[in-house]
Structures are given as C-alpha cells and as structure tokens.
C-alpha cells in the first residue's frame, strides 16, 4: 500500500469519501431493476415510483440550503423563493420551446440551466444584504425576499399571474434517471466545494467572521459565492418541480415551503451533507406515501415536524444538556460497539497531549531563562511545607 502523508494535504483516494455517491447509485440501480423486472409488483410502479421525483427535488433543495445554513451558518428562510424563480422561468421557457415532443431532453437541459442561472442571479442579489447583516436580520430579509417573489410573480401576466402556468413534463417512465443524475451533480459540486480550501474558508467565516477576515479570507467573495451556488441549485430543483407538476402555482413556493426545507436540513444535522440527503428523502417519503400523505394528515405532519424540530434543536444545543449529550450520543454508542475511543476520550487525549506539550515548552523556557521561575516554584514548595 502507498503511504499517505498524514498531514492530510495530499489527497488520496478514500472510499469513505465516495460512499454517498455509491449508495445513491445503488438506490438507482435497485429502482431500475425493480421497475424493469416488475419484481415488486404493479403497486410499486404506482405508489413508489411517483414519489421518487419529489424526493429528488427535496434532496437537491436540502443539499443547497445546507450550504447556507450548515456551512455559512446563516439562516435563509427564502429558499422556496429561489425555487419559485427556477420553476417559473424554467417552466415557461420549456413550455415555449416544447414542440409537443414530451421527452425532449435538450429543451429540459436549456430550461434547467436558464432556470438555475436566473435563480442564481437572485441568489447573488440576496447575498448582497448578507454582507452587512447577520443572524436574525438576515433571516428576516430572506423571508421578505420569499414574500416579494411570490407577490410579484402573481402579478406578471407572462407567468400566467402565478396561477397554473402550464408546464411540460417528461412522461417517460425512466425520467427519474435524470433526477438521479442531477442529484449526483449537485452532491459532487457541493461536497467538493465544502471539502476544498474554499469550504474551510467558509466555515471559518461561520465560526468567527472577524477572525476569518484577519486571516485574509475574502468574506464578500465567499458569502456571495455561497448564496449564488445555493440559489442556482434551488432554481434547478424548481425547474424539476415544474416538470413534475402539470402546472405551477405561486402558492407552491410560499415561505412555509422554505421552512419545510429548513426542517430537513436541521433534522439532518446542520452542515452534514449526508444528513441533509437522508432527512430530505425520509420526510418527503413520509409526506407522499400512503395514508400519511392524505390531506387530512397535513396538520398532524406540520405539528409533528415542528415538535421534532424543537426537541432536536434543544437536545443538540441546550447548555443544560451538555453532560447528557456527552454521555449518550450516537457516535459513542457506535464507538462502544466497535470498541473504538469515544469522543470524550479522544478529547481527553488531546487535552492530555496539550498539557504535556505546554509543560514541555514551559520546561524549555525555564531552562532557557535565568531559572527564576524554577527557584520560585521551589521556594513555593518550601513555603507550603513550612505552612504545614
């Protein structure tokens, strides 16, 4: 085996880093086999397959929102606004270009790119206030943006005044393959971005903006980049949504949808790419599958997700639960099962090393200097003895 540089600067191929792509491809393969062979019965084709597209759309939305919330550490409550722009622009372009040939992939590609770019432009514009505002203020601005977008769209005749703009659809049975392809692209872009030097720069802005600035990190560039990329993929998700729906309506993109996406990101664990994917897939599945997807269950779902959100956030952040969290957490549970070191022990190791290091350097300093402090320590001991 090739020896790797343990500083981690040399990028070597690690299967662990590509696990999520593999899992997604495996899911795709399983779906294709099940559909092709009909092994899961006709129910499968009618009940499961239609959910695949919304799941894909929400996975992309959650992945892209996670960039802003998880990596940049800012709360965006306007993600559905970007999706709205993508959906209306892409949907309209697709319906203009569409020649009745339903499976026209090239039209879809143009719609995806233009929809995404339009959303990205607005992402850039929303990113501008983010340069001056943080936290609660920025959250309100993004929320306001979402409301402005839906309010304006519903007044534009070009977009059928935001109500039931007819959009083309890919009626092909295998259209979900496109969704999977886009998920993989999104994942590749976002994951590589996060793991790059730029990703670390962004997370340093999240943790301490002023410190990041003093390190020479270009805050303006990074904040705008994050908002723009995030909005681009939300726009793409919007175009996919417009293909999924027979017609689109401005009410599909109100701010409660932004909050739904936020719930997915938070439940998945802010900053965790795989968590966002899993939470988005799970919640969208629940929302669309079987009895629980019925309209009469919608309020129960809202209340349930809200409760879970509150409990999860309190559990993860409450200062009073710190001891509890350290005692019982998933990672340590796994660690115990596999007899690895728990995170607490790891931290203790680090602390021990640090103290040893500092003791060492202290000793060096003492030797180098005129041994004043050594004497001081001795006399202190003597003084203590005398006291006793």
């Amino acid at each position: 085996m090739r020896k790797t540089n343990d500083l981690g600067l040399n990028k070597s191929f690690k299967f662990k880093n590509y696990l999520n792509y593999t899992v997604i491809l495996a899911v795709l393969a399983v779906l294709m086999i099940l559909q092709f062979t009909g092994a899961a019965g006709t129910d499968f084709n009618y009940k499961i397959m239609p959910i695949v597209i919304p799941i894909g759309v929400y996975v992309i939305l959650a992945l892209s929102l996670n960039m802003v919330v998880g990596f940049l550490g800012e709360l965006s409550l306007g993600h559905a606004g970007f999706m709205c722009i993508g959906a209306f622009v892409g949907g309209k372009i697709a319906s203009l270009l569409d020649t009745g040939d339903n499976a026209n992939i090239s039209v879809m590609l143009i719609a995806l790119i233009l929809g995404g770019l339009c959303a990205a432009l607005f992402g850039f514009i929303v990113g501008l206030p983010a340069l001056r505002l943080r936290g609660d203020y920025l959250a309100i601005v993004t929320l306001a943006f979402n409301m402005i977008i839906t309010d304006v769209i519903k007044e534009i005749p070009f977009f059928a005044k935001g109500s039931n703009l007819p959009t083309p659809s890919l009626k092909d049975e295998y259209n979900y393959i496109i969704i999977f392809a886009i998920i993989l692209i999104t994942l590749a872009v976002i994951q590589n971005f996060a793991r790059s030097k730029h990703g670390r720069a962004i997370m340093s802005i999240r943790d301490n903006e002023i410190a990041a600035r003093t390190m020479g990190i270009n805050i303006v560039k990074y904040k705008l980049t994050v908002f723009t990329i995030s909005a681009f993929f939300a726009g793409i998700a919007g175009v996919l949504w417009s293909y999924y729906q027979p017609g689109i309506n401005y009410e599909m993109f109100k701010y409660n949808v932004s909050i739904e996406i936020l719930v997915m990101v938070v439940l998945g664990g802010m900053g965790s790419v795989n968590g966002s994917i899993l939470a988005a897939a799970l919640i969208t599945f629940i929302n669309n599958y079987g009895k629980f997807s019925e309209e009469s269950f919608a309020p129960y779902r809202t209340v349930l997700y809200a409760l879970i959100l509150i409990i999860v956030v309190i559990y993860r952040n409450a200062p009073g639960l710190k001891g509890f969290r350290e005692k019982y957490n998933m990672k340590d549970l796994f660690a115990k099962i596999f007899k690895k070191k728990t995170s607490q022990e790891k931290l203790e190791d680090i602390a021990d090393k640090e103290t040893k290091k500092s003791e060492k350097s202290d000793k060096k300093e003492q030797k180098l200097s005129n041994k004043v402090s050594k004497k001081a320590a001795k006399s202190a001991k003597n003084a203590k003895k005398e006291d006793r």
Partner: protein
Amino acid sequence: MDFLETLLNGLSLGGTYAIIALGYTMVYGIAKMLNFAHGDIIMVGSYIIWFTFLRLDCHPSISIALAIICCVILGIVIERLAYRPLRGAPSLAVLITAIGVSSLLQGLPAILDTISKSSNNSALKEKLSGILNPLPIQDMVHTNKLVLFGVEFPISISALVTILITVATMIALTVFIKKSKTGKAMVAVSENRDAALLMGIHINKIIVVTFAIGSALAGVAATLMLTKGTPASPSFGALPGIVAFSAAVIGGIGSIPGAALGGFLIGILETFCNANSALSPYRNAIVFSVLIIILLFKPSGILGNPRREKV
C-alpha cells in the same frame, strides 16, 4: 380617496403594527431573541376573543381580558419549555426553535379542524366547527365616523381608539421601563446579563416578565386586528407578525419609540399603496423592499443604537 382619510387609516393600521412591534422589540431587546411565534400568539388570542365573544356571548371587555390572560400564559409556557433551555445556546438554534414553535401553534387549529371534519361524534363536530369557522366580528366594531360637536371627522371610532391605545401603550411602557425597579432591571439584563446577575437580578424572572408583557401586547393586537374585520384563522398572525417585526427593525429594534414609529410608518405606507390601484398588489413587496433598503443603509434602524459586534 381623500388624503387625510388615507393618512388616518394608515395611522390606525400602523397602530396595530406598532402594538405588535412593541411586543417583538421588548422580547428582542431584553431576551435577545426573535420570538418568531409572536404572530401566532396573536392568532391564539384572536380565536379566544372570537369564541368567547360570539359563541359564549361574553361581554367584549371580558373576552378581551380572557384573551390577554391566555396569551400571557401561552407566552410564559413557550418561554419556559422552548426558549429557556436554550439560554446561552447559539442564536441560530434559538431562532430555529422559535420557527418550530410558530409552525406548531399554526398547526393546532388546523388539527382541530381535521378532527371536526372527520369526527363521527356530531356534538363534538358542531362544537369544533363552531370554534373553527370564525366570522368577522362586526358587533365589536364601531365603523361609524367620529362625530364631535356636530362635525363629522374623517376617521372611524375604531381607528381612533386604535391610535389612542397605541400611544397610551407606548407611553405606559416607556414610563415602566424608565421609572420602575423591574423596568430598570430589564435594561440591566438587556445590557449585560452577568453584571445584572451580580446585582442580584434574577435573570429568568425578568425574562418571564418580558415575555408576559410581550404576550399581553399580542392579546391587545389580536383585539385591534379583529376590529379591522379580519376573521381568525391559523395564519391570522403570521403575515402581520412579519410585517410588524420589520416595523420594529425599521424603527430600531429594542427601542420602544422606534417600534411605534416603525409601525406607524409601515401602516401609512401600506395604506397609501392600497389606495393606489396600480400599487396595491405590490404592497407587501414594497413594505419588505423598504425594510431591506433601511437595513442595508442603517442596520440599527431609525432610532436604534448602532452596536458593534464584539470579537
């Protein structure tokens, strides 16, 4: 429409926003958090007024008092269960929790609604649909124009009352904060929690009082909004809540006169947009654009103190 009449109507709408904004600004200034659920506390208050007034035939003053009491209890319960455990946690976590509380509250009437629709128990069904299908309250509203000494003024009695209540509330709050011991303790907590603790101030108690005052204002706001003719609904408080928070931010969050000023400004702006048929569909867009512009050029708001973030 007559300019003066529009202005007065704007002041009246602004008064309602100002009352809501005062609730936001109190909590934001002292507990240092955006209580996203404030609008939904108003919603609960509106259901209570509606139900006690129209279904139980309570005297308006009793149903208003009941609503205020319920709002206060709700506010205190929310603070205790959802926000207090997060004291000292990152503000992002607190804000997300507040958003969760907001959608939780909005989901509750919707759940009652589904129960009433799917229930087989006809008595329960009737009772629930009685609560859940509110009508606008006309009896409580005096839409008549104010007449004094035989002269008709271009303002309805309810609009005038709204403005008076707002101004009175603002003055009362200012006096309370400036003069009372608890009010000064609130300022101390807002400025520096550790130093306030060293004075022997019980931080949690002060924050509970803050939430109680904020929620009582939500009850008042529910009353004022109902008198404008909007029926109660699960999303009753959501949009006005966000608009009023914007008003509080525009005026300078944490500042009591700022909240009132922001409220009146937004109210007047919205009413004038409404009066113009070309602008009226864009009124929310205009209001929020003003918010964004003001935030960009003066993030601390019109009357707020610019405060630099500490390293």
